[in-house]
Each structure stands twice: as structure tokens, then as C-alpha cells.
């Protein structure tokens, strides 16, 4: 063959190869580009869902109540699908088209999480008004276990709603024309049913599998025969909870949250406790002014005491000493730490009322200022006195007949405005301190209870270890472990659960860890403490298990036989999820060039009303709060540091308040939103965020430590009050524990049976009395004061009992929180002191009629 021939053949072979290769590589490039586009769209849609969530929580006062939260999440879910559809170039009504591609949407919230996922649900029989039909409803007929249905329009509206009204339906006009007997025939009567049919009376009616609605047996009450369909539903709320159990010693359930708040419910040594509160380091808060035993009050009593406006000064011991390589809490001199004094300016209710009054006054003054600007004002004598009242600015000599007077009014009104703002700021500061002190004192009481009962081993107390864990979010841990590759195995772990006192050497920490420490105080739980890592592992296992479950349900409904498995998330991503309210969106199976798209995106929230992130609390000088000329800052901003002087005080608010305006008047079309923080965002720390941080918690360097006392105080007040004012879903109204020491009817204990704990720990004693007999028939009321045989007056109340009645009387005897007696008590040790010296009823008579004694502990 000639050379020309060879070269032609070469070209003929190479050219098509190159062309095919080009095409293939282009396809690959397109696929990748498409995938990047989808990534972006998924992230943006998730962000849209988060924005909807944030805005809705900001505008809903009860946003942290689970029912309100559910609607908010459903709305956010819709926003996600709408945004995704729009982003993918579809109509935003394409939700049902996209649903099969979304295996799950996970919402991790403050104390639990929601999963929105496809679920098989039975199909109910639903009438044209949208109501589910149950046995006994009008139009439903039964024969044995077969049900048939003929819709009856009992109202005109119902007929209008009916979209496929056919001949089988009973029309409204026909229904009206019927006599009572005919009407009653449309409905099945309980008495007419056979025994088998009676069992199902009132049950919901399902559509049978593959049934035609005209069939005489189209419906059933047996859920196993029902037709199922697959819907994206928001599954029930799952708390971050764990159950710990050791023989018959303790059996408790702890509900964790994203921060240091937790609830504990369960039995420890036969005493049933329900407790909730913030968990803070041991001995970090002391009482300097106020009852010396305030810490041994119950949380509620302490809260009441502080909120009544009494002087309470707390001392936060946040100084760390570097001893033997480890950082330990300083227990030395009194001046090391931060003092916060609350009270002396009225009770919480009074302060709140004061703020309300001042706010009204303020809006009045601003509206008059606006009227002056527009040139129309009528200043009545009544108004003059109103304006003078509380502002200290005198208006009495003003006469508005001449033009100069307007200027004068303007000046004085402006002064009044300033004065009111100052009053408001002062009152707000007092209120903040009240809330902060309540936070630290109740948190200490709660934490002390944990340290005493669950973190130290003793005869009546236990140290809860990781191996005691039996359930996570209601699911047996053994089962979870069998199905999941757990990140940390609790089963044989001797690690304590409630241990946060593991402050390590700063030198051992990495740079990033030190930066993390700078952002929070020594009062927060350390990220490397056993408690923190335990909590994270529990939450992680719980989420992973339930997500896996959802994914497997999703797999069952997949038509293609490709299996979808939950992607493995990185540690850094978990860290993010477990510290913030987040939305995680999974997407799978969408056609994407040469392959199917599969990825997930996480968006975390930093501005919402259901958590407090210490880093997102902003501070303003008290005197400059709500002043348009000054800035608000982060606590570690150099600008805040530079303008700090020796006696500065600060007001604070959470980022959400600056980010979203609260809807304050829905009816006002002009100004429905109110921006209540006029301060500007600092360009260094809020708008930009890249600045040299002031380490105000650097407690090792003495000179720094003293310099930043004001700022630390501002931080403690800011974080404390924000947390205290947060509405918590899992909060227990009365944090206490109870023990039944005597129950005559159930043969539990006896009248001489003593409580397992001392009187000092008792909050109240509940006694149920049978008939108290009085021989004097004229005596129709008995009055008693109650004390113990130890001589303690339990309280100053007088209890009234009606004698000779057959009904039971329940007495709740509150125990004075100041009693510190270290002795146990039984019902027989109570003395019922009759206030009527002439009465024949003695203490023994009353005691003989005791039939039930319950001791309520703090």
C-alpha cells in the first residue's frame, strides 16, 4: 500500500475516535456543571426554607410552643419545595413532582427534631367538606364488615363544595324535603347494629384496597385492608432524650438541648423527680447579698424571691488559676469575679408595668413631635400635665398662640423624649439584671441538684455512667447499636455523664479551640468535657437512627430498584448541626446528565427566637441604647473595648431582634412593623466580622482580667437574661420530686414511715385526711397551725378542716425554705396545733384520720 493510502486510513481511524472522545468529555463536563448547579439550587432552597422559618419564628410570640412550631415548619417545608421548583425552572406548583426526589428534610431544633419524609398513610373516606367519615355518620351504611357510602348534603354549602356531585349523592333540596323518619334512616343507629358491628361504631372508615367507590363493600374499618398512599409528612417531634437505668436504683430520662439546658424526669431511690434547668459549673455562683441559703430554696421559690424585687447580689466566680498545668476555678479572694446586684427598684411585674407606661408616654411624645413638624398641635392643659408627669420637663407655662411657642414646645418635647428614653433604659437594665440573677441562681440550684444526685456516688446518690444508658429517643440502645455504626459505644463505657468540670490546660488546646474558648465564658460547658461529648453522641445517634428509618421507608417506595442509603456526614457538619438550629435537605435521583443527582445541604440559623447563641448577643452602652447615633457591638469588639470606662453598664439584645422586625400592629397598614433598635450595626464586628478579638475571658493574665470586668458583667447579664427569657418547650413548671411515704388504701408505708430525705430538702408535704370526727356537733370548722415535733413551724398558714364530713380533705403544707434541719420526717411527727383552745379535737385525732402522705422535695 502506498503511503497516501496508509495516511488516509490513519486519518479515518483517528478522526472518529477524537470526535467520540470529544462528545463524551463534553457530556461529562455538562453533567458536572449540572451537578454544581443543582448543588447551588439545593443550598439556596434550603436557605429559603430557613429564612421562612426565621421570619415566622420572629413574628410568632408562641413560636417555641410545639404546635405553633409545627405550622411554622410546615410553612418552611412548602417554601423549600416552591423555591426548589422555581430554581429548577418549574412552576412552583410542582411540589408533588419533586417530592419523590427528596428522601428527607431534617429540622434540628432546640430540644428535638422533626423529619419530613415520605410515609405510607392509609386513605380515609373523606366527604366533600373535607371531613373524615366514621361509622355512625350520615350516609354510611353497614352490613357485617362491609361499608358503603352515599354522600348526603345536609347544607347548601356542602353541595357547593362538592366537585363531583353525581346521582348517587342525596341533594340538599331532597334532604330538606325528607321527613324525620327518612332522615334518620340515612344514619345507622348503634342499637340496630350486631355485636360485631357495634365494636366498630365511631371508628374511622378507610378506602379498601383497589376498591371502586360504587362497590357495596368499598370501605372498611380494618386498617390492614386499607389502601395506602405515600405522602410527604412531618413526622412527630423527636426529643433529644436518653434514658438511664441502673437496677432499681435509678431510672431517669434526660432531655438534652442545643445549649446547657436540660430536663430530667424519673425515679432515684423511689423518689420521682421532675426537674429542668440550666447546667452550669459547680460553685461558680455565690450569693453575696440576700438569704444565705437562697441556693437551698427550690427553683420556684428562689425565682419568686428574686422577682419580688428584694436585694440579691450574686458573685460569678469566673477566674481561672493555672495550677499544676490544669486550669481550675479560682476559689480565692472575694474581689476575683463579677458581682451582679439585682432588686431595690421594684418587683418584676412593677418594672414591666413601668416599661409599658414609659413606652406609651414615649409614643405620645413622638407623635406630638410629628404633629409639630406638620404644623398642627393642640396642647391641652390635661396633656401638659401628662407630658410633665414622669419626664421632669415642665410644660405648664407654654401658650401656643404665638409662633415662637412651637419652637419652645419642640425643644421641650425633645428633652422629654430623651428623658423618657433614659428612664426606659434604666428600667430595662434593672429588669435585665433581675432576669440574669434569676438565671444564675436557678441554674445553680438545678446544677447543685445534679451534682448531688447524679454526679456523685453515695449511699442515696449515684454517679450516672454512660453504660447506664438504655434508650435514646425512646428506642432501645441495643437495637440502635445493632442497626447503626455508632460513633461512640456507650455500652461498656465508664465515663460519667454529668461531668462538665474538665477544664484542660490551655496550652494543650489547638489554636481554633482557643478561639472557640474566647467566644464564650468560663461559665459555659466546655466543648471537651465528658458531658458535652456525651450529649452530642446521644443526639447524633438519635438523629442518625431515625433518619435511617426514614430513608429505608423512602427506599421501599422507590420504583426504580436503585437503593438509596443515608450519606455519611462529616464530623464538622455534625458539629454544626448539633450546635445550631439547622435544616438538612437530602435530594436524590433527579436526572443529571450522565448520572442521577444525589447530595444533601445543611443550613444553620443564627437569628431565631428559639435559641440563644452567646456570640449572637449584641451590646450597647446603657445610656446610648436606642440612640440612632451609636452602634451596637459584639462583646469582643475592639471598639466596645476602647470606649469602655470604669463604670459603664450595657444593655443587650439577641441578633434576631436586629435582623427581623417584629410585626407589632397587623391592623396598621402604614407601619405594621416596628423597628425597636435604633442603634446602628458596628461596621467592624457586625457588618464585617473580621477584627482582632478582645479576649475578655482571658483569666490567666491578671491585668487583662481586671480591665474587662465591665464587659464580662455585660456578657453575663446579656446571656443570662436572654436565656432566662427564652420560652422553653420542655420546661417543667414545678421542678421538684415527690415520694409517697404513706398510702393507707394501697398499703404503702405507715404513719410513722419517714421520708428518705431531710426536712431541709422538702418543699411541701401533701396530706389527705379522711373524716375528722368532732364530738361537738356545733363545731363546724377546725383551724390548725402545723409544726413538727422538732419544734419547726413549717409555715405561718392556718389550715381549715371541716369536721364530720365524709369527703376527703387535701392539705398542702408548704415548708418554709429557710428551715435547714437535717432530720427526716414522718406524718406522726407533725403536730396539728388547734387554734381554738376550747375545741375538743386534738392533734392525735387529726393524725388518726390521715390516709395519704406525699412528700414533695425541692
Amino acid at each position: 500500500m502506498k503511503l497516501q493510502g496508509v495516511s488516509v486510513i490513519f486519518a479515518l481511524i483517528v478522526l472518529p475516535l477524537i470526535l467520540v472522545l470529544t462528545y463524551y468529555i463534553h457530556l461529562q463536563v455538562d453533567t458536572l456543571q449540572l451537578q454544581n448547579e443543582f448543588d447551588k439550587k439545593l443550598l439556596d432552597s434550603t436557605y429559603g426554607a430557613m429564612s421562612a422559618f426565621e421570619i415566622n419564628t420572629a413574628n410568632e410570640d408562641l413560636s417555641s410552643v410545639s404546635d405553633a412550631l409545627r405550622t411554622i415548619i410546615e410553612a418552611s417545608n412548602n417554601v423549600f419545595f416552591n423555591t426548589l421548583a422555581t430554581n429548577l425552572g418549574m412552576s412552583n406548583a410542582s411540589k408533588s413532582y419533586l417530592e419523590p426526589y427528596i428522601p428527607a428534610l431534617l429540622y434540628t431544633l432546640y430540644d428535638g427534631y422533626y423529619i419530613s419524609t415520605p410515609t405510607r398513610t392509609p386513605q380515609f373516606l373523606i366527604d366533600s367538606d373535607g371531613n373524615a367519615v366514621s361509622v355512625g355518620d350520615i350516609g354510611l351504611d353497614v352490613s357485617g364488615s362491609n361499608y358503603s357510602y352515599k354522600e348526603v348534603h345536609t347544607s347548601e354549602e356542602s353541595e357547593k363544595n362538592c366537585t363531583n356531585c353525581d346521582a348517587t349523592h342525596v341533594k340538599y333540596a331532597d334532604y330538606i324535603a325528607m321527613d324525620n323518619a327518612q332522615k334518620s334512616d340515612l344514619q345507622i343507629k348503634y342499637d340496630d347494629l350486631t355485636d360485631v358491628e357495634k365494636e366498630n361504631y365511631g371508628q374511622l372508615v378507610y378506602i379498601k384496597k383497589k376498591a371502586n367507590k360504587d362497590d357495596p363493600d368499598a370501605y372498611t374499618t380494618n386498617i390492614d385492608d386499607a389502601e395506602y398512599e405515600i405522602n410527604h409528612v412531618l413526622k412527630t417531634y423527636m426529643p433529644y432524650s436518653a434514658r438511664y437505668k441502673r437496677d432499681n436504683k435509678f431510672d431517669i430520662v434526660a432531655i438534652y438541648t442545643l445549649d446547657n439546658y436540660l430536663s430530667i424526669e424519673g425515679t432515684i431511690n423511689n423518689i420521682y423527680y421532675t426537674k429542668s434547668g440550666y447546667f452550669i459549673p459547680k460553685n461558680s455562683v455565690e450569693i453575696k447579698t440576700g438569704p444565705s441559703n437562697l441556693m437551698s430554696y427550690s427553683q420556684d421559690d428562689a425565682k419568686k424571691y428574686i422577682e419580688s424585687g428584694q436585694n440579691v447580689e450574686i458573685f460569678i466566680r469566673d477566674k481561672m488559676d493555672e495550677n499544676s498545668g490544669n486550669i481550675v476555678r479560682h476559689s480565692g479572694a472575694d474581689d476575683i469575679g463579677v458581682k451582679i446586684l439585682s432588686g431595690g427598684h421594684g418587683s418584676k411585674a412593677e418594672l414591666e408595668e413601668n416599661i409599658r407606661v414609659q413606652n406609651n408616654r414615649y409614643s405620645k411624645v413622638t407623635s406630638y413631635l410629628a404633629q409639630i413638624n406638620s404644623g398642627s398641635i393642640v396642647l391641652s392643659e390635661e396633656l401638659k400635665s401628662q407630658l410633665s408627669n414622669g419626664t421632669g420637663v415642665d410644660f405648664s407655662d407654654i401658650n401656643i398662640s404665638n409662633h415662637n411657642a412651637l419652637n419652645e414646645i419642640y425643644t421641650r418635647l425633645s428633652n422629654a423624649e430623651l428623658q423618657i428614653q433614659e428612664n426606659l433604659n434604666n428600667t430595662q437594665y434593672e429588669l435585665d439584671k433581675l432576669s440574669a440573677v434569676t438565671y444564675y441562681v436557678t441554674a445553680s440550684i438545678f446544677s447543685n441538684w445534679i451534682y448531688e444526685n447524679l454526679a456523685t456516688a453515695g449511699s442515696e446518690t449515684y454517679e450516672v455512667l454512660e453504660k447506664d444508658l438504655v434508650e435514646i429517643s425512646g428506642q432501645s440502645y441495643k437495637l440502635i447499636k445493632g442497626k447503626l455504626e455508632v460513633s461512640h459505644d456507650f455500652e461498656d463505657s465508664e465515663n460519667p455523664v454529668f461531668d462538665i468540670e474538665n477544664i484542660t490546660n490551655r496550652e494543650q488546646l489547638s489554636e481554633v479551640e482557643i478561639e472557640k474558648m474566647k467566644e464564650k465564658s468560663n461559665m459555659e460547658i466546655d466543648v471537651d468535657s465528658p458531658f458535652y461529648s456525651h450529649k452530642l453522641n446521644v443526639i447524633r445517634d438519635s438523629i442518625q437512627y431515625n433518619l435511617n428509618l426514614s430513608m429505608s421507608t423512602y427506599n421501599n417506595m422507590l420504583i426504580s430498584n436503585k437503593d438509596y442509603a443515608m450519606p455519611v456526614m462529616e464530623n464538622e457538619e455534625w458539629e454544626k448541626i448539633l450546635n445550631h438550629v439547622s435544616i438538612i435537605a437530602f435530594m436524590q435521583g433527579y436526572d443529571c446528565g450522565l448520572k442521577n443527582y444525589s447530595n444533601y445541604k445543611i443550613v444553620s440559623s443564627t437569628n431565631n427566637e428559639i435559641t440563644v447563641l452567646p456570640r449572637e448577643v449584641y451590646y450597647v452602652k446603657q445610656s446610648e441604647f436606642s440612640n440612632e447615633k451609636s452602634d451596637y457591638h459584639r462583646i469582643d469588639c475592639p471598639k466596645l473595648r476602647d470606649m469602655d470606662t470604669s463604670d459603664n453598664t450595657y444593655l443587650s439584645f439577641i441578633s434576631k431582634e436586629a435582623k427581623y422586625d417584629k410585626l407589632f400592629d397587623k391592623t396598621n397598614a402604614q407601619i405594621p412593623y416596628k423597628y425597636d433598635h435604633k442603634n446602628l450595626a458596628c461596621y467592624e464586628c457586625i457588618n464585617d466580622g473580621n477584627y482582632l478579638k478582645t479576649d475578655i475571658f482571658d483569666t490567666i493574665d491578671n491585668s487583662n482580667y481586671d480591665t474587662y470586668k465591665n464587659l464580662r458583667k455585660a456578657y453575663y447579664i446579656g446571656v443570662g437574661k436572654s436565656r432566662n427569657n427564652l420560652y422553653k418547650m420542655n420546661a417543667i413548671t414545678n421542678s421538684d420530686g415527690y415520694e409517697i411515704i404513706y398510702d393507707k388504701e394501697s398499703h404503702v408505708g405507715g404513719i410513722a414511715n419517714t421520708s428518705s430525705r431531710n426536712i431541709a430538702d422538702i418543699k411541701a408535704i401533701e396530706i389527705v385526711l379522711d373524716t375528722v370526727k368532732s364530738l361537738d356537733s356545733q363545731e363546724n370548722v377546725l383551724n390548725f397551725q402545723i409544726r413538727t415535733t422538732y419544734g419547726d413551724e413549717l409555715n405561718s398558714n392556718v389550715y381549715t378542716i371541716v369536721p364530720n364530713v365524709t369527703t376527703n380533705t387535701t392539705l398542702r403544707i408548704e415548708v418554709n425554705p429557710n428551715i435547714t434541719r437535717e432530720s427526716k420526717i414522718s406524718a406522726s411527727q407533725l403536730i396539728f396545733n388547734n387554734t381554738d383552745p376550747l375545741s375538743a379535737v386534738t392533734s392525735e385525732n387529726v393524725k388518726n384520720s390521715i390516709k395519704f402522705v406525699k412528700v414533695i422535695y425541692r
Partner: protein
Amino acid sequence: MSDTLITIVAILLAAVLMFIFPLLSVSERSDDISQLSVASATAEFVDNSRATGKITMDNYTKLITTINATGNSYDVEMEIKVLDENIGKKSAWTQGTVIGENVYYSVYTSQIVEVLKDRDGIYKSNGVYKMKEGDIFSVSVKNTNKTLSQTIRGVFYSMSGSDVYSIMAQHSGIVTANGSY
């Protein structure tokens, strides 16, 4: 005479078809593959940064290493449009639906890299540049050297203008969270 001419033309044609065209084509595919990896690295970098609210030195270095591994040199341009929170909020509103009053100011590559590199200086950034929710982050990557395919194409025809590059990737989006450590 005419035979010789045809032979010369045939040799030239054969040379183009047998050597230059395959070479051009292969080098273009090589650019496509570079494009593939640059585009995905850029998208990953941007999406990661805007999901976490922070640009880290680690991620930035990873991006640079990945794109440089294609054998070309690149110009990476970053821009953050920082949302000014003070505008649009403070004026007295006459309507409840004020939209589009946001104002942004921009921060560019050199400023961002300065903070990233500044571990012990005035920022002590620890290699983290923080953004906040609402900022807009965009990155564009272009090759600065002449790739082989560009050189070969240059033999036949030349394109003028400053925007001549064969590998280019761009990705941007809104930052979804306030950055912190």
C-alpha cells in the same frame, strides 16, 4: 509539474490531518478536563464557604492546589458583597413592604487573602475569614498562561482582546449563616 504541486499539497494536508489536528484536539480535551476539575473545585469552595459563613485558609489552599494540579496557572478572583445592615432599616417606613433597600459594599481577593494569611498580626484570623448571613460570595477562576490548545490555535488564527482564556469557572451565592470558629 502539477504532480509535484499536488504531492506537496498532499504532504501538507497529511501533516495537518495526521499531526496537528489530533494534537489540537487532544490538547483541547485536556483543557476540557482541566475545566471540569476547576469548575467543580470552585463550586465546592464557594458552596462550602457560604454554607459555613467562613472562608478558611485550608479550603482556599485546597482550591489553589486542585486547580494548579491541572498544569496551568490561574487567576483566582474572590469578591464578597458585604451587606450593610444599617440601610433600609432605620428610615421611617411609610409602607410595610420595603424591598430592595439593601446596600452592599465589596471586599476583594487581596483584602480577603490578607486576613487569611494574617495569623498573628492585626486580625489574628487563624486562617478564617468570616462572612455573615446575607452577604454574597463569588469566585471566578481563569487561566493566565497559554494552554497548548491556545498555542496551536494561535498558529492558525489569532484572537485579540484581554478576555481570551480557555479555562474559566465561576460560582457565587448568598451566605447562609454567620461565620464563627
